[in-house]
């Protein structure tokens, strides 16, 4: 079980230049729309042809520009789930599931029936895709791919076409349905929640390049650079000046940070997640930030504060406001008290970054 991709493709102003290798079972690719993640998947499936490079799955060369190898999609055994599922509109559920199976295959009907059961589609066999809900359509699309027994499955933003309230549950459902699949699965998404839940391994893409690669949980905990941290959903950043092995001066926030751990020499910024601040009343403690409130947003289960750092470098740009999000369960500690005097940065939540 392995995939190695090293391809380049120019398309107008955009150029894709991506290279990665992985033997992880579940790989997530995270990136904003237009970063080239879909084009990467399409190149693997043989729908797009890269200008140059090489694609190898389990030792099988699917594409190699130097050797003039470019297998047809039909020969690649790559399952592709499209954003809109691409179910064949004039075929029934059963026919859709059987679309990739040979009629000469004696076990064809058995396999279709198997998939119908496994994907919980009993009673819908004769329905047309237009008569199904979004979740059912997704199950048919996955059943159709699994019936074909591909060597690898590619999921292209599989949840973006679904209603908000369905997403969470269907993500969960999809994970359990993929459990029985032995091959690799690559999920492409712009949603960090989806990606975090999905894969052991994570690839972060921007502007046609891989910006970071690693174990998903590790990458979220220690993104390494400001841009990667931003993509994992981190909201607050400050430039930092390293004073010595254990102290940093945060220039944008006007405070000095003392850390127990050793600070590598190349650190020149920090990131801090909006949920991780701790309110402090009364006396100023270590690593406390003084602020001026700029605004509040009330969300159904969360309150969001937007703050100016006092003594900061004085950039009153709204993009530089500090975000502090408090979930309802934590609001009890705030109720009945005046606004906190300081926000404390917890050592374990400080992400040491490079710009």
């Amino acid at each position, binding site marked *: 079980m392995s995939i190695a991709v090293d391809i380049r493709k120019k398309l107008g102003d955009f150029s894709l230049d991506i290279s990665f290798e992985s033997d992880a079972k579940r790989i997530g690719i995270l990136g904003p729309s237009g970063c080239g993640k879909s084009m990467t998947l399409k190149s693997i499936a043989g729908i797009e042809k890269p200008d140059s490079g090489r694609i190898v799955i389990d030792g099988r060369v699917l594409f190699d520009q130097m050797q003039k190898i470019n297998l047809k*999609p039909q020969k690649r055994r790559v399952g*592709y789930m499209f954003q*809109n599922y*691409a179910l*064949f509109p004039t*075929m029934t559920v059963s026919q859709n599931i059987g*679309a*990739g199976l040979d009629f000469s295959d004696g076990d064809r009907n058995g396999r279709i029936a198997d998939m119908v059961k496994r994907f919980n589609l009993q009673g819908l066999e004769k329905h047309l895709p237009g008569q199904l809900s979004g979740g059912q359509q997704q199950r048919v699309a996955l059943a159709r*791919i699994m019936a*074909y027994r591909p060597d690898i499955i590619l999921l292209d933003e599989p949840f973006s076409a679904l209603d908000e309230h369905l997403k969470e549950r269907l993500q969960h459902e999809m994970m359990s349905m993929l459990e029985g699949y032995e091959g690799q699965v690559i999920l492409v998404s712009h949603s960090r929640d989806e990606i975090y839940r999905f894969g052991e391994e994570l690839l972060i893409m921007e502007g046609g390049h891989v910006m970071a690669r690693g174990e998903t949980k590790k990458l979220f905990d220690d993104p390494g650079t400001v841009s990667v941290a931003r993509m994992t959903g981190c909201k607050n950043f400050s430039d930092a000046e390293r004073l010595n092995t254990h102290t940093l001066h945060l220039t944008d926030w006007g405070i000095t940070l003392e850390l127990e751990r050793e600070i590598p020499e190349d650190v020149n910024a920090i990131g801090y997640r909006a949920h991780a601040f701790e309110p402090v009343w009364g006396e100023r403690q270590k690593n406390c930030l003084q602020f001026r409130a700029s605004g509040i947003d009330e969300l159904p289960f969360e309150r969001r504060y937007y703050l100016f750092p006092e003594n900061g470098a004085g950039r009153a740009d709204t993009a530089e406001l500090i975000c502090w999000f408090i979930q309802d369960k934590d609001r009890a500690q705030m109720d009945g008290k005046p606004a906190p005097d300081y926000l404390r940065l917890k050592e374990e939540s400080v992400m040491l970054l490079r710009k």
Partner: protein
Amino acid sequence: MEFLESLDWSPLIISLKTGVVATVVCFFLGLFAARKVIKLSYKAKAVVDGILTLPMVFPPTVAGFILLLIFSRRRPIGIFLDQQMDIQVVHTWLGCILAATVIAFPLMYRNARAAFEQIDANLVYAGRTLGMTEMNIFWKIVVPTAGPGIASGTILTFARAMGEYGATSMLAGNIPGKTGTISQRIAMVIQDGDFATAGFWVVVVLLISFGIIFMVNMVTGSRMKNIRRW
């Protein structure tokens, strides 16, 4: 009643037969051409599409003239067909079919092309990643999905082929019982002043034409059931 008994019904048979055969030929040629053309580059498409659509745009007599130039038994191709393969086009039923096919072809081709262009490319890609052959993808996914557009194209093609006059009269002539179609019969009997027979055939044509349009509306309309009226 006496009128009907003494009537020569051959124009109806010839027109229907011509319409059916020409439609079948146009159907396959039109689908084939449409499938090829949508894959062409922007510029090549403009040129090829122009050529394929030409018979619909210029006067049928021009088409008839060109066909006559090609297939006349006094010209190379006509001579070759006649002597080597024993095929005669001019003043034969084959001429009727050829004229009708050439004139009606653009209707089939253009409708099929429009229908193909509406198809979500992902359907084709999905078929490919599922290992389906291009042939299977075309006949099992593309054509059924483009169904209503292709059906209306086919019906209009039949209507046009059945009513063809200009090119047919030049290439096939109006030989009663052989190449005499309804349209040609109407023209002929009017010249003879026989308005009763002309009127009868006109009614037949009106009925068939209305039936055809009605069918097109039923086929394409069934998909529009849920569209709100404004």
